[in-house]
């Protein structure tokens, strides 16, 4: 992507292996406690989603998990992680409506909130819900904390909030956050695939393409201010999300 060799594909795994071998420094011991909950709930979310559980419960568990990370960052009481935590809350408020609308849209088409039923639906959801799909891809950039919406935890710590929400976490705890992030990524890409569930091969391709797109966008854009991020997310949700649902609702 940047005409250079770059780190190997397995680099994230090497990083985590190393972090497990590092010392864990904390400001307050209790801050790690919240991260354990964050990790547990993320794993719970993934299990729930991929065993075909309730989509609404999945979304709720995912939100709850993120809240625990925010609490951990607050507990660390450093100005950087504090601002990171505040911004994460704003981001959550920004992307949450769109996630819910996506679930509602899927319900309108398949008459079920159960992931398994949605996945088994013979209709290609993306054809009826193109607005929701595009909107969901936009908020994916929020959820995966990529530019231009990486307000809460900048990828490299040379900017105004160092590493934001993860600034005060190190060693084993940071490794857990990384692993949880993999789960997060898998779950949200799974939701992307759900739009294409009628054609499994297309679902896999779509998830891959969307992931690539998000990384490309991350590399191309600079970060925006939170006001713009919030407006972008809500306007997308209102226009694409609500619009799409209204169309489906009245034309059914």
């Amino acid at each position, binding site marked *: 992507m940047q005409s*250079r060799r770059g780190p190997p594909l397995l680099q994230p795994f090497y990083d985590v292996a190393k972090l497990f*071998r590092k*010392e864990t*420094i*904390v400001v307050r011991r209790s801050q790690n406690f919240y991260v354990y909950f964050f990790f547990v709930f993320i794993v719970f979310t993934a299990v729930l989603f991929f065993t075909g559980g309730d989509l609404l419960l999945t979304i709720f568990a995912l939100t709850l998990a993120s809240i625990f990370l925010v609490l951990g960052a607050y507990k660390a009481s450093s100005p950087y992680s504090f601002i990171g935590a505040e911004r994460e809350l704003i981001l959550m408020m920004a992307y949450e409506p769109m996630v819910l609308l996506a679930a509602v849209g899927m319900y309108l088409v398949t008459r079920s909130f159960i992931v398994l039923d949605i996945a088994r639906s013979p209709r290609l959801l993306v054809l009826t819900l193109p607005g929701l799909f595009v909107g969901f891809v936009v908020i994916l950039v929020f959820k995966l904390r990529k530019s231009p919406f990486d307000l809460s935890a900048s990828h*490299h710590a040379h900017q105004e909030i160092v590493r934001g929400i993860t600034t005060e976490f190190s*060693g084993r705890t940071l490794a857990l956050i990384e692993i949880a992030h993999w789960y997060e990524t898998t779950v949200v890409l799974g939701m992307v695939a759900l739009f294409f569930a009628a054609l499994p091969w297309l679902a896999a391709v779509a998830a891959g393409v969307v992931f690539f797109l998000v990384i490309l966008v991350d590399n191309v854009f600079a970060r925006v201010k939170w006001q713009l991020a919030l407006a972008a997310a809500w306007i997308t949700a209102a226009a694409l999300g609500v619009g799409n649902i209204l169309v489906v609702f009245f034309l059914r």
Partner: protein
Amino acid sequence: MTRSTVSGGEGMQAFKKSPWVLHYDASSCNGCDIEVVASLTPLYDVERLGVVNTGNPKHADIFLVTGSVNAQNLKVLRTLYEQMPEPRVVAAVGICATSGCVFRECYNVMGGVDTVLPVDVYIPGCAARPESIIDGILQAVELLEKKRAYMKSMHGRMKDMAIGRATALDAPEILALQKIVYQNEAEMYDDWSLAPLKQTLQDMRKDFETRVFIKAVVGGKIIGSVRGYMVGETTAHISRLIVHPYFWKQGIGTRLVQEAESNFPRAARFETFTGQKSRHTMEPYQRLGYMPVRQEKVSEHRDRVYFARNREGA
């Protein structure tokens, strides 16, 4: 800031694959500073080796310092270093960071980085070439693996622990340890006005004139300490039992107290006090037969529990 045990498995040498770098430019001409950044560009692409230029000391493995140290940035350097988790390696990049170079004689320059931090790798050059910086990082990575192996072996080296009298020369190390341990206490009682947290080095040095200091040393590092002094003719007061949180629940406290007691052959009675919630401090005393005698309130959340024990046969 609290530090907890180094953990993790065996097998692959993880540091070789993922050395995260913290870069700080102390002073001088910025030439080396630019070369460090150059080695991260696509041309030299040091990221292909897994290097990340992290701006956060708590995530860093290698501390790259460019430029000489002066009176102003000395504190910054120390703080950054203190915040890096073990194992960590310091690399001095360029001749200014190595020795101070032509700035060596300046009125405000302390010299190279090794005047304030333990430097592991020296990278020569003015300015240091990106090639030599990359070479230096690779050497630093080897050292990370070595340090990690050493730290792991420390856990098996409790047998080699030496306990004995400390001298005033140990004061800085004991004070640093005291602050680490009492930060835990302060959090426990939500009281950051604890005297041991506020003690100055000067004050502690003065204590050495009137008190007996005992230290526990593992691998050249002081990991525990206690002090004692006579109160009146027959009573010895033992105080400030501190053990680095890495080494709790291994009986080090008990041995420290025993050693302290043996320094007061004339004492018939030993006394001490702890906070009411500090079970880890009470435990060694209780094991040695100290009994609680009274409890008094010192602040809103904190009570002082006094313990005492009479010498056997006294």
